[in-house]
């Protein structure tokens, strides 16, 4: 049974219809502009990872022909891929941005944090992040809801208390495109302009906009060893243990995080179009394939978010 009015039956001309990527871009630009208009001291989390690069690209577009009207912040675990750090610095330089860096190493050196038994540092980022957020009232993050089931329930504007905690039971309803960023002193708002993007959307957008990314997102030969079903790169932050033979593989990275627990995937995708095809055909989620920290338990991300993580 179908009842349709004449008005709705009239097709929208193709020239006045946005493609999926255009819709997502317009939504993200709207969010970025809302935050700049309503908050006093926003900051954008920028690690050099693909999601933060895309978010920064959208910020450039949102405020053109002016400069990006906020600084960027990197929470540096000290376990970096050198090409990603170089990319971060070159991008900041090219766009004339101010970069704030919070070093996990500083916290380890003075005893405020202690190294974990497994040596990984993704989970140690939360405290330096909260301290660095300090004077900022809005923090842009590149988190996407398709990444993980706790993130699937995250708002675009996520209100956090003075400890940065996410309370999934007490979230503000988010209606239409009317975002409510009011908060009390000490509270801040995490904002996720890429909430509605999927991994494939990000890559299609990178291809369409010709956005430069760190080279490790594309296939290259690297010395790796297998651990927990992932390929870890041999380097200062990850050394093979006994029984973990080192081989040279053609790999690329789907995510970039702490080098001691971010795995590479075998790939021949040397060009962005190859990556788009690869992601469209993949049978593993991005985090399932490459993040040891999310495999810890069914609720690993949920627990970290409640503690103030992104």
């Amino acid at each position: 049974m179908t009842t349709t009015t004449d008005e709705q039956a009239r097709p929208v001309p193709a020239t006045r219809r946005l493609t999926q990527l255009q819709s997502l871009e317009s939504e993200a630009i709207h969010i970025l502009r809302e935050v700049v208009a309503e908050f006093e001291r926003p900051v954008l989390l920028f690690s050099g990872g693909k999601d933060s690069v895309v978010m920064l690209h959208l910020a450039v577009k949102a405020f053109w022909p002016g400069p990006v009207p906020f600084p960027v912040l990197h929470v540096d675990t000290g376990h970096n891929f050198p090409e990603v750090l170089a990319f971060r610095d070159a991008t900041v330089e090219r766009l004339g941005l101010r970069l704030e860096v919070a070093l996990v190493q500083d916290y380890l050196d003075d005893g405020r944090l202690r190294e974990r038994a497994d040596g990984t540092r993704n989970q140690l980022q939360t405290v330096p992040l909260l301290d660095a957020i300090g004077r900022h009232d809005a923090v842009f993050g590149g988190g996407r809801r398709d990444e993980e089931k706790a993130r699937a329930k995250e708002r675009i504007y996520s209100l956090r208390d003075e400890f940065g905690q996410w309370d999934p039971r007490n979230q503000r309803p988010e209606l239409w495109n009317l975002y409510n960023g009011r908060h009390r002193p000490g509270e801040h708002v995490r904002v996720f302009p890429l909430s509605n993007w999927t991994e494939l959307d990000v890559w299609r957008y990178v291809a369409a906009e010709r956005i430069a990314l760190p080279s490790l997102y594309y296939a290259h030969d690297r010395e790796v060893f297998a651990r927990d079903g992932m390929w870890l790169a041999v380097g200062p932050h990850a050394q093979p243990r006994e029984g973990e033979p080192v081989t040279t593989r053609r790999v690329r990275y789907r995510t970039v995080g702490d080098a001691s627990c971010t795995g590479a995937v075998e790939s021949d995708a040397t060009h962005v179009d190859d990556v788009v095809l690869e992601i469209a055909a993949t049978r593993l989620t991005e985090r399932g394939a490459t993040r040891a920290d999310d495999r810890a338990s069914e609720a690993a991300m949920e627990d970290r978010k409640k503690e103030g993580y992104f």
Partner: protein
Amino acid sequence: MSTLLRLATAGSVDDGKSTLVGRLLYDSKSVLTDQLDAVERVSRDRGLEQTDLALLTDGLRAEREQGITIDVAYRYFATSRRSFILADCPGHVQYTRNTVTGASTADVVVLLVDARKGLLEQTRRHLAVASLLRVPHVVVAVNKIDLVGFDEATYRALAAQVGAAAADLGLADVRTLPVSALAGDNVVDRSTRTPWYDGPSLLELLEEIPAAVDPSAEAFRFPVQVVLRPQGAARDERHRDYRGYAGQIASGVVTVGDAVVALPSGRRSTVVGIDTADGELHEAFAPQSVALRLADDIDLARGDLLAADDDAPVPTQDLRATIAWLSDRTLLPGTRVLLKHTTRTVQAVVRDVVGRLDLDTAEIVPAEQLGLNDLGQVQLRLASPVVAEEYVVSRRTGAFLLIDAHDGATLAAGMVGEPLAEARCPGRRPAQYAI
């Protein structure tokens, strides 16, 4: 080119909504191996014989521990023709809050009814919310059709009831189809077990439904978000004197040369440029994000609205509106709040609670206060004017939030006018209409 469709699910407890969403994700191959492994593992741990696809939409640990769904969850899936954003709205806890939230951005509401139970009051309430929020399309999936032996008469009777209820509620486009979420009949692939149904499967239907209304059929509305004035900070010398009004077009089309009026000031000007970072446009349409340049240096800032000069709304400080009250505080006449409408936030006072909207009858009944999850009619007085239009005319310029000025909580979702009454009886205007 692929387009985007936003859907929201609705249904009562145990009507198989989670299973349907799981089935849609699974059969459209949007579930990846590691996610499926996890669901299979949990299904085995719980001693289930079959993999429970409903577990695919299981979210937080607190929810698993209590066996309930707390909040709206967003899912993403795609076919070669379209990408979908699905707002998965839980049916029982905070029902109004979740369904209103999901419906507010939806192009389509997918409503489940149990073929064995028939049309419940709950179903009628879901349809009423879809009508109130002016969701353009509704798909009613008559689920568990396998449990009534794929009986055509049962389906036809239910479809007729749904059609009658939808017509009464003024829903323009409602489609029904028989499905079995558990077995997969008519979800992604057409079933051979319902030979009497020759329509599309649910996914086929969702691929075909028009995602947007034609912007050229609407009046041009442009709430100003920020004024772009880079001055000395311009990255290019030529933009030192640039002044552009940045925003997302709320409705309609704008072309270079168009006469526009700034509201609420009423000053007039002409659009001389439509800018994006990718270059100048001759024409732009909703919902594009652009920056507009005007011929005159008029006083225009965030919170103001540019409208077509020959079809402009009238700013007002008095609003009669339907609101969904989302707070556990009680709303009484005299309550002071902040009202956020497009890009403008103003102080407001609730002059009067006119009545409560009874979703079962879709009528307003007298009431003096509103409580959590109530829908009601209120009269608002604003400290300064907003450029609001009736919600039946525009889901963008007809919508607002009520916010607690003290702690910032979102108290209510508001719709200007009486959208449900207008949908049921177009042209009807209450005598004391404030706009």
